[in-house]
C-alpha cells in the first residue's frame, strides 16, 4: 500500500484551515465543531480519521460532501478536490461530484438502501446515472462489482430486497454501489460499527484490497485505533474538533507523540494481555463542551502533562515534528522522551486486588447453575442445551456474534423470558437488613420457566442485571437518586428515609459518582455516568449474581476502561458472580476468569480464559480471535478465512452448527452428526469433530513480534 501512496504526487483531496460550526440552540451563537483542520489525501491513499464521539470526524466528512444541512456552515478554510474548490462549486457541479467522483458509505447499511427496491435495481441505477450506459451493460458491471466485493451468488443477491440480506451483505452492496461509479475518493464513516466482528474483518479486508486494486483514495473514519492500523496508510487523530496528531500509520503506532493519542491507546484492552498484566487506564474527565473550550490546549483539562504556561495560554499550533509527523502539543518534545504507551500518571495506581500476583481468586461455591437450557422462537433455536455455571466471586465471559443466543440466555436467567426446557438453580445469599438464608443448593429453585413476577423476593434480590444501552437504562423522568433509592428499598430491604439516603450515598461513592448526581435526571448525565448509576442500582442489594449484557459497548473507549475497572472492582469486593456478555474479545480476555464461546445457541468452547485464548482452539474461537482489529504493534496476528456470513438461526444444520462457515469442515461428518465434546484440561472443553491431535497442533492467533 505504501507504493500506492506514491502513485500520484498531487493530492486528490486537500483541506486547509477548515473550520465548521453549527447554529446554537435557539439561535444563540454558533458552536464550533471543527477548528483549523488540515488534511491531504494522495492518489490511492487510505487516510484514517480517529477520535471519540463528538470530536468532529463526521462533520469533516459531511463538509467534504457539502452535506452540512441548514444549521452547519464552513466558517473558514478551503476544501480542494483534484484542485477544484468544493466550497465555491455550484449545486450542479456538486451533484455531478457526489456519487460520481466522491462516494460515501455510512454506518447503517439498512438506512442507505431503499427497502422497496431489489439490490440489483439499486446497483444498476449507478452506472446508468453516472456513466449513462444501457441497462444490460449496467447489469454486467453490477455483476462484476459483486464479484469484486466477494459476493459470489450474484443472481440471488441481485434479485433480493435489502431485508433479505444479512448486515454484512448489505454493507457490501452499499460499497459496491459506491464503487460502481469509479469514484476517486471513497469516504467511509464507521462502515463496520454496526456489524459483527467476523463480518467486520471481512469488510476491512475488502476495503484494503479495493484501495490497492482500483487505486481509489479513501477517507476512513473510525473510533477504533486497531481498524485504522489495519486499513490505512496515514492517519489523523482528532480531539474536540482539532487534529491533534497526524502522520503515517507505521510512524504513529511506532511513536505516539500526543498525550491524547497515547491515552486513547492505553485505554484499549490488548488481546494478548489481561487485567493483571496490563491494567486499563481511562482518561479522566470528559470532552469539554464546544461552547466553553479552554483557552489553550483543548485536551489540557484532561492531560497529565498539562503546565499552565506553555499549555494554557494560547491555542497550540499543529507543529510538524519530523518528516511527516505533526503534533498539536506544546510539550511534545519533552514528553516524547518517554516511550509510548504509558499509562496516564494522573490516575491512582490500580487497586491492590487487581494487581495481586495471583492470576485469579479462588472461586467459591456454585451460585448459578444452568443445565441443558433450550429456547426456540418459532423456527429459530436461540439456545440449545446450554450448560453454564457461575461460582461466587467469578467472572464468566460469554462471547459470540449477534444472534448467537447470548442475550436470550441472559433474559431467561433474569426471568424476562422463559425457557422451553432445562433448569436454572440459584443459591441465594443473605443481604443487608434481610435475615440470612442458608446458601445451600437444596434451597435453590428451578428458575428456567419462572417469570420474574412469580419469583420470590429473595431470588429477585440475588439476580440483578446491568443493561446495554446507557440511554435507556435509567427512567428519564425520575432523578438518579430516586431510582437508586427505589432499588435500595426493593432489593436492600432498607426502611426509613434516612437509612435509604445514606445507602444511596454509599452506592454513589462506590461507583465514584459525585453526590450531586442524586438530584439530577438522566438527561443531564453523560453515557458513562449513566452506566455507573445503573451499576450502583444493580449492586444495591448485595446480589449473588450480576448479569452484564454488553454494558460498555455503547461507550467511548476512554470511558469504557473506567466503567470496566469499576465493575471488576465492585464485583471483587462484593464477591459477586458476574456473567459478562460481550462481543468484544479483547475486553473478555481482559476481565473474565472463564470464557464461554457461543455460536447459534450452542456452546462451542469453554474454559479458563488463558486456555480459551491459546491453542487448542475451537475453529470458531480461532476465527473470532483472528477478526479482532489489533492496535498494538507488539503483537502479530494470523489470518483465518471463514467460508460465509453468519447464516440465519432458523433451521441450523443437524450436526455442528458452525459447519457452514468452518474452514476445517470434514464433509459428510460435521454437518450431519453433532460434534463430541473433547476435554483438554479440567473444565476446558471444545465441541468439535476434528481429531484431538489436529486441535492440539493449532498455532496461536496472536504472537508477540520479536
Amino acid at each position, binding site marked *: 500500500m505504501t507504493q500506492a501512496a506514491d502513485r500520484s504526487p498531487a493530492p486528490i483531496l486537500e483541506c486547509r484551515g477548515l473550520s465548521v460550526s453549527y447554529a446554537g440552540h435557539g439561535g444563540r451563537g454558533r458552536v464550533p465543531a471543527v477548528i483549523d483542520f488540515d488534511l491531504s489525501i494522495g492518489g490511492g491513499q487510505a487516510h484514517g480519521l480517529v477520535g471519540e464521539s463528538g470530536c468532529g470526524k463526521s462533520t469533516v466528512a459531511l463538509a467534504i460532501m457539502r452535506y452540512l444541512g441548514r444549521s452547519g456552515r464552513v466558517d473558514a478554510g478551503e476544501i480542494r478536490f483534484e484542485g477544484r474548490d468544493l466550497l465555491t462549486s455550484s449545486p450542479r457541479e456538486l451533484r455531478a461530484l457526489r456519487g460520481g467522483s466522491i462516494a460515501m458509505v455510512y454506518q447503517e447499511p439498512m438506512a442507505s438502501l431503499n427497502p422497496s427496491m431489489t439490490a440489483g435495481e439499486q446497483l444498476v441505477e449507478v452506472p446508468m446515472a453516472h456513466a449513462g450506459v444501457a441497462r444490460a451493460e449496467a447489469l454486467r458491471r453490477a455483476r462484476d462489482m459483486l464479484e469484486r466485493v466477494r459476493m459470489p451468488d450474484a443472481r440471488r443477491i441481485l434479485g433480493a430486497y435489502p431485508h433479505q440480506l444479512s448486515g454484512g451483505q448489505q454493507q457490501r452492496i452499499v460499497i459496491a454501489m459506491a464503487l460502481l461509479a469509479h469514484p476517486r475518493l471513497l469516504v467511509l464513516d464507521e462502515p463496520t460499527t454496526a456489524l459483527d466482528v467476523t463480518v467486520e474483518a471481512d469488510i476491512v479486508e475488502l476495503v484494503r484490497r479495493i484501495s490497492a486494486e482500483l487505486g481509489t483514495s479513501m477517507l476512513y473514519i473510525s473510533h477504533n485505533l486497531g481498524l485504522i492500523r489495519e486499513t490505512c496508510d496515514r492517519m489523523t487523530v482528532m480531539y474536540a474538533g482539532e487534529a491533534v496528531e497526524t502522520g503515517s500509520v507505521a510512524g504513529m503506532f511506532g511513536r505516539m507523540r500526543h498525550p491524547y493519542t497515547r491515552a486513547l491507546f492505553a485505554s484499549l484492552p490488548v488481546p494478548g494481555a489481561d487485567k493483571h498484566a496490563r491494567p486499563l487506564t481511562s482518561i479522566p474527565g470528559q470532552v469539554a463542551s464546544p461552547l466553553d473550550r479552554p483557552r489553550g490546549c483543548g485536551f489540557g483539562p484532561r492531560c497529565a502533562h498539562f503546565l499552565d504556561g506553555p499549555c494554557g495560554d494560547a491555542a497550540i499550533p499543529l507543529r510538524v515534528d519530523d518528516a511527516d509527523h505533526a503534533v498539536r502539543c506544546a510539550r511534545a518534545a519533552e514528553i516524547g522522551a518517554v516511550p509510548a504507551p504509558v499509562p496516564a500518571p494522573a490516575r491512582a495506581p490500580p487497586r491492590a486486588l487487581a494487581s495481586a500476583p495471583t492470576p485469579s481468586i479462588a472461586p467459591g461455591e456454585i451460585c448459578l447453575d444452568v443445565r441443558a437450557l433450550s429456547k426456540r422462537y418459532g423456527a429459530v433455536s436461540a439456545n440449545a442445551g446450554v450448560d453454564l455455571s457461575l461460582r461466587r466471586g467469578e467472572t464468566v465471559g460469554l462471547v459470540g456474534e449477534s444472534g448467537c443466543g447470548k442475550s436470550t440466555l441472559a433474559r431467561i436467567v*433474569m426471568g424476562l423470558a422463559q425457557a422451553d426446557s432445562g433448569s436454572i438453580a440459584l443459591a441465594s445469599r443473605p443481604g443487608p437488613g434481610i435475615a440470612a438464608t442458608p446458601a445451600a443448593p437444596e434451597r435453590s429453585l428451578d428458575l428456567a420457566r419462572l417469570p420474574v*413476577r412469580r419469583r420470590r423476593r429473595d431470588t*429477585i434480590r440475588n439476580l440483578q*442485571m446491568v443493561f446495554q444501552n446507557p440511554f435507556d437504562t435509567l*427512567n428519564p*423522568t*425520575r432523578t438518579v437518586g430516586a431510582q437508586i433509592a427505589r432499588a435500595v428499598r426493593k432489593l436492600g430491604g432498607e426502611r426509613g428515609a434516612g437509612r435509604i439516603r445514606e445507602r444511596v450515598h454509599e452506592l454513589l461513592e462506590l461507583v465514584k459518582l459525585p453526590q450531586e448526581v442524586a438530584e439530577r435526571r438522566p438527561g443531564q448525565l453523560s453515557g458513562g455516568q449513566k452506566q455507573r448509576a445503573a451499576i450502583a442500582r444493580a449492586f444495591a442489594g448485595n446480589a449473588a449474581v450480576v448479569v452484564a449484557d454488553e454494558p460498555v459497548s455503547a461507550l467511548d473507549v476512554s470511558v469504557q476502561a473506567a466503567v470496566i475497572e469499576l465493575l471488576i472492582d465492585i464485583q471483587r469486593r462484593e464477591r459477586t458472580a458476574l456473567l459478562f456478555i460481550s462481543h468484544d474479545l479483547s475486553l473478555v480476555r481482559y476481565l473474565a476468569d472463564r470464557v464461554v464461546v457461543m455460536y447459534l445457541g450452542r456452546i462451542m468452547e469453554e474454559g479458563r480464559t488463558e486456555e480459551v485464548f491459546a491453542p487448542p482452539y475451537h475453529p470458531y474461537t480461532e476465527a473470532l480471535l483472528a477478526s479482532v482489529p489489533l492496535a498494538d504493534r507488539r503483537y502479530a496476528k494470523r489470518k483465518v478465512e471463514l467460508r460465509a456470513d453468519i447464516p440465519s438461526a432458523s433451521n441450523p444444520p443437524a450436526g455442528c452448527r458452525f459447519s457452514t462457515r468452518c474452514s476445517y469442515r470434514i464433509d459428510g461428518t460435521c454437518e450431519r452428526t453433532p460434534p463430541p465434546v473433547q476435554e483438554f484440561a479440567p473444565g476446558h472443553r471444545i465441541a468439535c469433530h476434528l481429531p484431538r491431535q489436529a486441535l492440539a497442533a493449532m498455532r496461536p492467533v496472536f504472537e508477540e513480534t520479536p
Partner: protein
Amino acid sequence: MSARIAALVLLVWLPLAAYVMFRPAFGPVGPYLLLPAIPAVIALYAIAIRRWHHSTIAVVGVSLVCFWLLMAAAAPYLPLIDPDKPLAPFVPPGGVGHGTFFLLGTDMRGRDVLSRTLWGCQRVLVWGIGATAVAYAVGIGLGLVGGYLGGWWDEIVSFAGNVFLSFPVMVLYILVLNFLGQSGFNIIIAVTCSSAPVIMRIVRGLALDARSRDYIHAAQTRGENPFWIMLVEILPNVRGPIIVDACLRLGYTTVAITTLTFLGLGLQPPDPDWGLMIKEASTAALLWKYSYMLIVPALAVSSLILGFNLISDGLRESGARE
C-alpha cells in the same frame, strides 16, 4: 412545576364546576365560590407566558383560553346586564332599547347578547374540560393495561375499543343521551364513550413502545408490581404526546358539546350557553340584519377551540425542540 400548573388548573376548574353544576344548591353564596378561581387564572396565565414566551403560537393560544377562563370565573362580578332578563327584543349592536345601551345587541327575546356570550362560556368550559378529563382517565387506564400487560387484557380492551369506534360519533351520542337522559353528566359519559377508545389506542401504542425499554426491564427485575411500572415508569415518560393530544381533544369536545346543545340533546335552557344561543338564533339569523345573534356566539366557540388547538401546536413545538 407541572404539579403547580395542575394545582392551579384544579383551583380554577373545581369552583367553576361546583358553581355550574349545583348553582341552585348554593343560592346567594354561589358567586363567592368563584372568587379563588380569578387569581388562579391570572397566575396560570403568568406561568404559561413565562414558559412559552418564545412561541407566538402558544402565547396566542394561552391568551385565548385564559381570556375565557377569566370570563367564566369573573362573570358574576362584571357589570353585566342579567343574561336571562328579557328587556328589548331585536336591538341591533350598539343600539339603545328602553333606555339601555346594548354593545352587541339583544336577541329575539330581548336578552343582552354580550352578557349571554360571556356567561355562556361557563357551561362549555366546565363540561368540556370535565368530559375530556374523564375520557382521558379511562383511556389512559385501558391503554396502559392493554399495552403493558398485553395478552388477554390487550385482546379484551382492544376489542371493546373497536366496538365503540365502529359507531358513528353522532349515533353514539344520540344513543347514550336518549338512553340515559339529557344532562351534563350524561354528556361526560357520551364523550368518554367516543373519545376514550381513541385515547386508549394512542396510549396503548406508547406503552407498547415503552415496554421494551431497559428501564422497564430493570423495574421488572427489581420485582416491581405492574401498577407501579405502568404509573411510575411508563406514564410519566409518555405524557408529552398525551398532553398535546389532550389540548386538541378539548377542542373537539367543545365542538361536540356545542353541537349536542344545538341539536337539543345536551344542556337544557334557560342558562346561557353558546350552543343554545346558536340554536335559538338560527331561525332569526336567516335575515342578514339579525345575523349578529349567530355570529357572536359562533365566534366565541371558534376562539376557544382555536385557543386549545394553538396550545396543542405550541406544546408539540416545544416537545420537538427538547
